[in-house]
């Protein structure tokens, strides 16, 4: 009889355990879904950040502008000086 009673108790606990496992599994499934969503969003964000060409374009623009400035600064001063010399020669 004692065994039957213990068996009955185990059955009750087993039922509870099964139910708890079901609920836990459901919760875990939900959480895993959330995690997958987050991971997908993470991947998307990675790709978005990497594919963002604004910085590279801006950098290129800046480089171009810098080079233009350099060229202008180097050339035009020389031109100015040459022009000045020419004018002097002309006057003389």
């Amino acid at each position: 009889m004692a065994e039957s009673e213990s068996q009955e108790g185990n059955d009750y606990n087993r039922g509870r355990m099964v139910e708890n496992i079901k609920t836990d599994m459901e919760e875990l499934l939900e959480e895993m879904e959330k995690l997958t969503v987050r991971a997908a969003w993470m991947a998307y964000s990675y790709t978005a950040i990497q594919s963002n060409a604004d910085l590279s374009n801006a950098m290129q623009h800046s480089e171009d502008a810098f080079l233009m400035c350099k060229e202008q600064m180097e050339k035009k001063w020389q031109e100015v000086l040459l022009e000045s010399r020419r004018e002097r020669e002309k006057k003389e």
Partner: protein
Amino acid sequence: MEKENRFKLFMPPRLSAGQVSAGRSQGFNRCSDDDFKLPFDVWSRGEITDSDTISQQVKLCSEVDEENPETMNELFSKLYKEAEKIKQWKLTVETELNQKERKLQENRKIIEAQNKAIQELQFENGKLHLKLEDEICENKDLLKEAAASRHLCNLLKETYTRFTEKTSKYEQEKEATIQLYEELHSNVERMTVAFEELCVQAENDRLEMSFKLKEEAEKVDKFEKECRLEVSQKEKQIPALTIQRDEKDDVIKDIKAQLQTSQNKIADLMEAKLHNEEMLKESQVSKEHLRVELEEAKISLQKAEVAQKNLETEFQTTVKTLIQVTGEKEEQEEECKKMKALLAALTEEFETSVANLKSLLQEEQNRLKKSEDDSKLLTLELQNKSAELEEMTKVKCDKEVQLEELSETLKEFHGLKAQLTSTAEKEQDYLKQLVTLKTDLEQEALKNEQLTVYLSKLSLEKEQTAQEKNAVAAELKKLQEQQEDSKKKEDNTKQLVENLEEANSQLRNELESLKEKMAKTGEEMKSTLDEREENMNNLKKQVENKTKCMEELQQENKVLKKKITTESKKSNTYEGKVNKLQLEMENINKQHKEEVDIYKKDIETRKVNENKLREEVEKMRLLCDETAMIQRETDARCQHKITEMVALMEKHKNEYDKLVEEKDAELKVYKMKQQKQISSERALENELSCLKKELSSLKEQLKAEMEEKENFVKEHSGSMIPESEKKHKSIVSEEEMFKNLYKDYPQASQLHSTAPKKSPAPCSVKSPGSALKLKTMRRMREAGWTALSKMDRKRKIKDAVKLFA
């Protein structure tokens, strides 16, 4: 059974059934209840009734012979009626028996069906048990799987948490990177904008620089033009400047010529300077001559000084007079000193008297203190009170003497007071004289001050002359300055100087005489005025002093009167105190005597108490010593006992340890025995199951044998139906017999009552208990067979009785 018994009764015709049957019917009625249950008892009672009937038959034989034949006929009719009744009863009983046998068979069938059902149920139970075990295993496996799944879930949760943490970190870092990107983007944009601005600024600067260069070129050109113009202009200005230069050279030459002339002039001037210096030297020589003359003037001045000295001699005379006055003053001072000495002596005498008085007072105080100490000692010392009382009386006498002395001292105080007043008056007179002398001294001091003033004036006059000398020297210097003008002026100046000096001397003399006169007059006047003022002041001072002295004397008189009154009061108070002290002393003496008596009594009582207490103390000490000894002995004994006990304990420790170990071993043995008993019980249970099987087999054997018996009985005779019935009955009774026999063996009764089962557990285990069980079974069988044999014998006897009846 009743009728059978009645047959037994009525078998002997001699009996009178009326009285007998009435008496025995009650006994038979009692037997009717236990027909089918206890055949042995019935048959036993039948035997007993036979004996009783036989005895009763013997008794009644004698009584029946006396009755009538009519009653015999009635009896025969009653007998026939009762025989018919008995036959009917037989038939009914037989029908009932048949019915009951049918019921029994039906019940047996039902039992068999139930047994079969029970077997089937047991089969099903076994199957269900197996299923349950399988399901239990499955459940255990499921539980394990659930635990594993739970573990996995926990791991998943942990991984989830880590993942969430990492995602949160990622998000934070992503946000940071986005911000950095944005910042970089903004910086890059700023850089581009800056570079563009730089380009624009560079262009602008270039343009500006070009413009500036152009402008500067133009400016340079203009400047060159201007310079050229200025050069042309300056070239034009050159000849004019050369002309000016020549003119200036001429001017320079003129200036040089002028310089040379000036230099010549300077040389001439230098020569003139030299001449002038020579002149100065000559003037200096003249100065020296003048100085000599000044010295002569000084000599004249010295003469004046001589005159001054004369004056000084006059001063000295006055000083002498002053000295005389000072001598007089000194004499007066000496007199004063003498008076002071006298006063000092008097003061010393007074001080000595005061010291004596103080000493006397101190002695009196000491005596008073001593008396107080003595009185205290009296209160404290109880033993020497008699002597102390005498001492007290002596002290009283001394105190009386002291009181007399105090009175004398008081009288002396009064005389001393008078002396003090006289001396005070004398001191006051002397003080007055001192005041007058002081005033005289002040007057003389004033005179001295006047003389000093005169001397200061003379010094001032000296200073004035010196100043005049300086003025003269200055004038001389002025004359020296005028030497350049002319030498005549020097001579004239000399003459003038001489004249002036003469005039100065004359004037000085005159001035001195005048001053002397004036001083004298002033002095005389001042002296007179001073003397008058001094006199007045002195008089005023004397008046003031006298008034002050009078006031002081009056105050002192008042003070002294007050002191006298106070001292008289004090003396009166002291006298009163002395009287009080005398009364107190008398009272104290009385109290002391009473207290002495009381204290003596107390002392006696206390001595007695002390003796008692000492005796008690000695007793207690003895008791203490004894108790200490007892305690020591007990302590020693206790320690010995403790040591012995400790030794015994140590000795027995080993034994106790051994006992403990033995008991532990016994406990273990008992546990083992219990376990063995449990195992034996289990084995017994197993054997019981085996026995059940055996019993089932035995039952089958019994059935087979019963069938054989039935067949054997049928072969022998058909009329033995009742015997078969009886055998059936006997079978039933055997079963009942087995039940009765197996009451002691309940296990076997269960086996007998139930049909053989197919026990799931194989009874393969054989233990020594099985042998016991077999022995018991054999005994039971033998008992049953003996019972059956006995039954056969009894039936045979009864049948024989019936047959023979």
